[in-house]
């Protein structure tokens, strides 16, 4: 899996692209943190959106997320704390604000409460 870390992401790998091995059936967030890429996250139950990332290529299974919508998938946004790769993936991490914008646009929770 390849993680594209934007310049404005507040982790040491900002601006880099990092290769991370994800053991079969494991979550992206867990694997990244195990590899020393401390991606942001709060609930780790697929709810709060803090860990959101944009899927640039590949496929992620989001079944374990507690609050995930088809419109998120349509926008290529995923909750990495509960996302299991189904193929080799390329993911832009630290997309919390983008996820909040998308939810607000779709009037889905947390909606405009954080906008």
């Amino acid at each position, binding site marked *: 899996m390849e993680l594209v870390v934007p310049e404005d992401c507040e982790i040491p790998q900002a601006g880099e692209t990092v290769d991370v091995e994800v053991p079969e059936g494991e979550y992206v967030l867990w694997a990244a943190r195990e590899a020393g890429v401390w991606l942001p996250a*709060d609930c780790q*139950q697929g*709810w*709060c959106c*803090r860990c959101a990332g944009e899927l640039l290529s590949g496929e992620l299974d989001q079944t374990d997320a507690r609050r995930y919508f088809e419109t998120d998938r349509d926008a290529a946004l995923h909750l990495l704390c509960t996302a299991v790769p189904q193929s080799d993936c390329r993911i832009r991490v630290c997309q919390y604000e983008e996820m909040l914008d998308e939810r607000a646009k779709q009037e889905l*929770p947390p*909606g405009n*409460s954080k906008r």
Partner: protein
Amino acid sequence: MSDEKPHAAGNVDAGDTSERVGMAVLRERGLEPEELREKLLDAIGAEFTTYYYYTNLRMHLAGHEDYKEITEDARLEDRAHFELVAPRVYELGGALPNDIREFADRASCPDADMPVAYETGGFDLENLTAESILEVLLEAERCAIRTWSEICDMTHGVDPRTYDMAQRILQEEIEHEAWFVELLSMERDGEVNPAGHFVRGEPGDAPYSTNNRFNDSA
């Protein structure tokens, strides 16, 4: 000392009530107070919704008086966490949302709702078990541990006031997890997995978070 700022240093003018030094000092140390405030609102939203949902979970542990009492401790302590941190949101220039739905929507942890279907006429009680309720309780506590750990990381060495609150809450959330690990282990697996604690002195004692009580309801 300047005549214009007889009691002040920094860039907040004497008597200026539009600025808060309590926020400026965080900014000076690299922590955006607005970002922290929003995170606190999410976290206490979760404490508040948990307080609500635990009421229902506790009610439905009928016949398990020990589980009910322990769930009641966790429920009241989660409310105490909300009470403890709510004033901090205002100190940081924020406010609780006017609409409670908005507050629930932004809660940083999932709804700890009943683990059976709800339809007109009530819950599907035929399929409700103590085990399934204990699983909901355990995962709710785990979410709280993660959230308050993040807030501890964010404030450590920068914002002693918020850090103090967050670490007190974290200590109680870790105790709650231990309680539900013990209860679920025995209920589901017949395994002894001690929490290492005994019951609170009074229901919802909150021995860490009420040491810093803001008022009698906290």
